[in-house]
């Protein structure tokens, strides 16, 4: 059902020029809006990724909101009575930092697990987290520990 198309480069030259201008303007507009959107998104969403050691050493030099990765230190997980507020100590092996968190705790959160918390240092020096992510051991399938002998 294809109608007979005019071959390439048919039509008056001026109409082609105007069409090209329309498409060029459209392309530029789309690219600029996308760049603007992405820029705004990065402004809103960017959080620096730091380790416990870095945060201890130069907390002042870092932005107020960071993403901190580490391991939940064994024997440090404390809940309040209603299981609403969580406190634990995060460690990178050498340094430690107390963390406070209120909100949904992922089911896979546990001592010895790798976690990522987002937030900042509070006045008392503890890390006040607004987001808590635990690394799912099966879904990402890291190298399995050697089975005990």
């Amino acid at each position, binding site marked *: 059902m294809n109608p007979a198309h005019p071959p390439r480069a048919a039509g008056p030259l001026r109409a082609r020029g105007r069409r090209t201008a329309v498409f060029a303007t459209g392309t530029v507009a789309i690219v600029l809006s996308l760049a603007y959107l992405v820029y705004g998104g990065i402004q809103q*969403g960017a959080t620096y*990724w730091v380790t416990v050691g870095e945060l201890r050493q130069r907390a002042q030099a870092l932005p107020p909101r960071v993403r901190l990765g580490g391991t939940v230190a064994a024997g440090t997980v404390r809940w309040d009575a209603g*299981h*609403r507020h969580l406190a634990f100590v995060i460690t990178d092996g050498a340094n430690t930092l107390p963390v406070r968190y209120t909100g949904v705790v992922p089911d896979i959160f546990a001592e010895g697990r790798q976690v990522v918390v987002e937030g900042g240092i509070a006045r008392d020096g503890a890390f006040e987290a607004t987001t808590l992510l635990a690394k799912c051991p099966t879904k990402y*399938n890291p190298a399995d520990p050697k089975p005990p002998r």
Partner: protein
Amino acid sequence: MAGAASLGRFAVLAALVLVCYAIAAAVLGARVRRAELVASAVRALRGSAALLAAAALVLLVALATRDYTFQYVAAHVDDAQPLVYDLTAFWGGMEGSLLLWALVLAGYTLAAVRAVGRAQPELLPGVIVVLAAVAAFFLLMLTAVASPFATVPFAPLDGRGMNPLLLNPWMAIHPPTLYLGYVGLTVPFAIVIAALAAGPSAADGGVLLARRWMMWAWYCLSMGLWFGAKWSYVVLGWGGYWAWDPVENAALMPWLIATAFIHSVMIQERREMLTRWNVMLVILAFALSIFGTFLTRSGVLSSVHSFTQSPLGTLFLIFLGCAVVAACAIAAWRWEALRSRYELDAALSRESAFVLNNVLFLAIAFAVFLGTVFPVLSDVLTGRRVNVGPPFFDHVVPPIAVGLLVLMGVGPLLAWRRASAASLRRNFLAPGAAGTAVGAVLLAAGMRAPGPILVFALAGFVAGTIVLEFARGVQARQAMRGEPAPVALVALVARNRRRYGGYIVHFGMLLLLCGITGSSVFATQRVVTLAPGEAAAAGPYRVRYEGLEQTTAAGALTIGARLRVFDGAREAATLVAARNLYLNGRDATSSVALRSTPRDDLYITLVGWTPESGSGDAGGARVTLRLLVNPLVMWMWAGGLVLSVGAIVAMLPEARPRTVPVPAPAPALGAAAAPLAGEQAGQ
């Protein structure tokens, strides 16, 4: 059972040898033009498929019999879990997933060889080479890096079992469905590369032949994403269905590219334009499917410090690089032959709407890609790992999605080649009124947020255009043949399956977008602590806590809070929100108390509990509950169903005689590959 494991290892190794032979035979056969050589390559592929099936059977038997001498079985199965999840453990880990990938690819390869051999036999050697090369990579991984058949001399008494979160029906079908989609993207890639290699004249037909396969892969990806969202919502207990997690994004990106292709290939069919663009989309979709596997399996983004824990990630990246470079080189070699004979006639036309649609899909894919790899990118560029997370995606994606929503309504109403102002007025009057009415009603009902009003009004507009298209078609049939309306409707859809199936898919997307908008903008949540008999309000509901109960089953202790839900004065439901604690020390899981209605979902999780001091009775404990009200979620799931129906309608082979004679006797499947120029007739 070392014998079985050896059999599995041998089968994979032999399959690898056979696909390598297939590559050599197909290349040589194409060179010296000997059909017997190509035929022997096909036989080798059949043999490798049979060997892989045997290998899969070995693993399945080991899983079903809980043969813990297999390291893979010991890592993913235990004595306590139900048998059906022993079998789904096949894709519960990396090695099994790779084997599943290879097996699915082998199945696709046989189907593709059959279909291509009938439709365009000159492409057969190329298709064999590409598919066999991809298979060879996966088989090499299965042999050398991640063998599911590794054994230990002394079996442990019990396995470690699967993560309880994965013991769920949605999770049982989500990975294989997604894999069917991922691997399915390899077939269009192989066909297009083969067409480019075969000659300047074959490329156009190759892209059109690839369309049907792309459609299938797109359908599987859609369903896989849908199942994954459902699992996340029902099982994970955080109250959402999409977290912009790298693993989710990895599946979304090829879906976006496949969606773009399904649209732009229509322009190629009708107007013989955009061939180059379509070729690049097919290559990109394949590259993203491999990239997605790399993301999910390498741990490059999920881990906090270490770059990769297994060499698999690096090998995937090398394979990806080689495939993309080779594909682009072939495309560049044929670039001039792919030049379109025609160009866009006017800025306001169906074609330009399709082009814009493609640009927007690519823009979303680009934004998702950027957001996903941002930590790695910033690490490389600035030496500092910076994460952009959900706020980035929530800022960038919705505006582009609204643009696509506009196009979904405008596109079908624009004339091909050049739209006139008069036809626009005529076409846009009724749907525009429908959209305006929806917006006005929402404003009158007190909704003030501009974003949702815009989305719902646009959804009304698009729904109006879809209804208009159906109504016009039915009226035309009624006028021409005097059929009653229902008969005319069925006949209309049956005669133009792709077109009207597409509209049904669009309608499903509308429901999906409305559900997403409602649940992400208007969701409310609160955390409350209640003693037995106390109640808390959540949106229109009142939730009364009756008491705590304990049950034990299959290695798990379940602590459940009995809840009675009142909707206004009426008692609406009795629910239990529970935590499952596992006796073998695995992580606890949540059982969500969920009540779904078309208006909203009441979603309650048990956060914690404290026994009443002094009383030993657990029933008197105070509990902390998280109460969420998520509006319109049910429409999301309904949208997925409608989308599925539309996609099936669009994919069913057209039941009409072939218009183009094919020299070889080719029943049934040949029609699928015949040029589809006249298919969308009658617009």
